[in-house]
């Protein structure tokens, strides 16, 4: 296993010396994300395996190439879960890709995002140095939080080779309730529930229905369900929401992921096909010009990206303000001075 890491390190070091470009590949399940990958592939999937897992410590440490399926299964067998409920987008999804892409599922507003659960990482920076940040403990304020900086950085700052994640107990009881209503009422209801002590673990709106998931103890979930009413429905819905396989998202137009404050009213011109995260995530298939979508997202206090089926090289990520872009470029240089790793995968400028 150390050999696998050392082989990756040597490869990056060589690329650094020769000014080569590398595209980092795990299970290739998320190749469609971001801008078009360029450079020689560097395969992380051989660097796999769970390094340590002690359920009572609430921490699992695994090599980046470990399949997400294996992680899910392992923690499930111990009565736990990855509480950020990561989308897989394919059976070969890896831990490294999941963390690098920084995506979280329906539980995110209530349990936290992937970045909230990353405790430590081992990375190879663009110079071919193997570095370790954070650790396997919950509280750790020594040094800058490079572990979380790596999360969602699309491999532009380093090759993830090992990650420690916080895990949580799987709730003893869960149920899913559906309520028929219009979208405006749905948005209002999601906000009201989130401001109450209802044990929420999911709230999405699609096709004229609000869907709510409750998680907690048997007694707590039963009491909340009685109070809310609604119709008990299939929990399989949440996997479809997470994997974007819900029928409401079928289509061929560009799929936009619009992240806005949950209080943002529905935009009839950019009507969401599916609203997740209690109102804070709007999935819209639309041919509307990128500028229209972005203006609305930005005016609402959020950001928008073409997730799939669109002009990935021009619209993948929401443009950054000049001062923030400059910081990104300098950080890129700090970790990857020769621009070896996933060049231009996130933004054209670095």
């Amino acid at each position: 296993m150390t050999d696998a890491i050392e082989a990756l390190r040597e490869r990056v070091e060589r690329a650094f010396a020769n000014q080569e470009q590398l595209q980092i590949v795990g299970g290739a399940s998320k190749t469609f994300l971001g801008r078009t990958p360029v450079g020689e592939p560097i395969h992380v999937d051989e660097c796999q395996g769970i390094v340590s897992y002690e359920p009572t410590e609430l921490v699992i440490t695994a090599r980046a190439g470990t399949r997400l399926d294996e992680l899910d299964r392992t923690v499930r067998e111990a009565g736990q879960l990855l509480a950020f409920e990561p989308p897989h987008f394919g059976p070969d999804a890896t831990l490294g890709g999941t963390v690098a892409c920084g995506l979280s599922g329906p539980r995110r507003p209530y349990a936290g995002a992937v970045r909230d659960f990353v405790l430590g990482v081992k990375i190879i920076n663009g110079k071919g140095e193997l570095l370790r940040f954070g650790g396997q403990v919950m509280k750790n304020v020594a040094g800058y939080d490079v572990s979380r900086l790596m999360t969602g950085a699309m491999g532009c700052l380093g090759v993830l080779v090992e990650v420690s994640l916080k895990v949580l107990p799987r709730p003893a009881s869960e149920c899913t309730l559906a309520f028929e209503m219009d979208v405006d009422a749905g948005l209002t209801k999601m906000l009201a529930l989130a401001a109450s002590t209802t044990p929420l673990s999911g709230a999405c709106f699609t096709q004229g229905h609000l869907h709510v998931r409750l998680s907690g103890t048997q007694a707590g979930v039963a009491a909340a369900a009685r109070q809310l009413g609604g119709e008990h429905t299939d929990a399989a819905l949440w996997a479809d929401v997470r994997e974007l396989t819900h029928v409401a998202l079928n289509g061929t137009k560009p799929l936009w992921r619009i992240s806005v404050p949950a209080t943002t009213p529905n935009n009839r011109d950019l009507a969401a096909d599916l609203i997740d995260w209690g109102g804070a995530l709007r999935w819209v298939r639309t041919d509307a010009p990128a500028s229209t979508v972005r203006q609305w997202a930005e005016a609402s206090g959020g950001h928008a990206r073409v997730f799939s089926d669109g002009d990935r090289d021009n619209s993948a990520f929401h443009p950054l303000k000049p001062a923030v872009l400059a910081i990104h470029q300098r950080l890129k240089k700090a970790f990857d001075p020769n621009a070896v790793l996933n060049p231009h995968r996130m933004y054209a400028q670095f």
Partner: protein
Amino acid sequence: MAEPGLARQASSLSNSGVAIIMKPTVIDDLLGVLPSNCVLHATEDLRPYECDGLSAYRQLPLAVALPETIEQVRAVMQVCHRHRTPVVARGAGTGLSGGALPLSDGVLLGLAKFSQILDIDPIGRTARVQPGVRNISISEAAAPHGLYYAPDPSSQIACTIGGNVAENSGGVHCLKYGLTVHNILKLQIVTMEGEMLEIGSDALDSAGFDLLALMTGSEGLLGVIVEVTVKLLPIPEHAQVLLAAFDDVESAGEAVGAIIAKGVIPAGLELMDNPAIRAAEDFVHANYPVDAAAILLCELDGAQDDVSDQITTVDGVLRSCGATEVRVARTAAERATFWAGRKAAFPAVGRLSPDYYCMDGTIPRKELGHVLQCMAQLATQYDLRVVNVFHAGDGNLHPLILYDANVPGELQRTEELGGRILELCVEVGGTITGEHGVGIEKINQMCVQFAAAELSQFHAVKHAFDVDGLLNPGKAVPTLARCAEFGAMHVHHGNLKHPELERF
């Protein structure tokens, strides 16, 4: 009080007799951009700013700037940048690692005047506040809406949110509710060049790198925080506390793992060893079992039905792990009494010994028995006493080494023992600081935890924000050349600064 700026620009004669104009000093230029009552530079005015909560380290700054608007903060930064003068930002100065210790050639930037809560959105459950707002004020302002701000460092009545972000502060409820980094959405910062940056967003994530996480806990080395948007949570319907006594510390440690194995995440989970129990009991009379080797305090919160379920579960676990006694607080007053001893543990220990030295390591919880055993051996070896209080849920240890600075050699032995304990924390996979920050205090121990290439990477990160290295230089990340000595927090005769505050 303030010297007229022009006086400092007085012309003087060079040896050749040619009049030359002295360049304006940084103080002159600060007086040019701030009202004169917002610039302090007379020694007696600087004195209150010479240290933060770590009063063992003191240094007068060149000047103190107390701006009242963001535009003034920007102007101060521009002046300092032009003069290549270092800047140390400061909130309430309650930090325990010397992060806000001034520099003799630097400007101390006090943000206490930024004390307004700008907006509370009860529907979106956020608050937009200035950096000088006290932590507890946010929860107080949100309370009428049934909401609160979760991170609650023990100094919350005084510490400011800007400092909380800079240190990534925790509190006793971290295991369930997370640290500052988990509870904020957006920052406005001013860079060393005086430029404004918006980091994060009002949505749950933002485009680009996670600069919000990078800024959180960066100890004032990357930017000056001038506005913070925090998340608010619904106030739990119900909270309840259990107290369990154990005959040995290891069993208490195992009980913590066993509670979590049952799927319960307590809101707070604290462990005290026998010397800490006795000290606390002598001090506040919380009716603690003074013969117990250790006690665990376990707080559960949530909906009424959830809490009742969990109380039953936890009670069973504690007994099966060998608890000799389990008490459940029956009233709010009893709950407060259970906590009173824990909260008074540090001042209580201050009564046992002329001086103590507080450590802040975090370890994987499973190593507790091993670490306590090694610490006891080390204490014997160094002929010193160690008292332990422990945020058991998240593995954050606060060993207190008791010593007397007036006994020749004891201070030095204490520092050595402290160093060995931190090395032990790193050795078992932990960290040198769980919540107090590195600051100036633990800067040397960073050398134990990180390799040279990692420290160099940290410096490169700083360089990306602060090219000239003017923001709080010399703190948090040691230069490679410095990696040699050890520093520590020393409390003389219990004289922590702000003794009125609950700590740790």
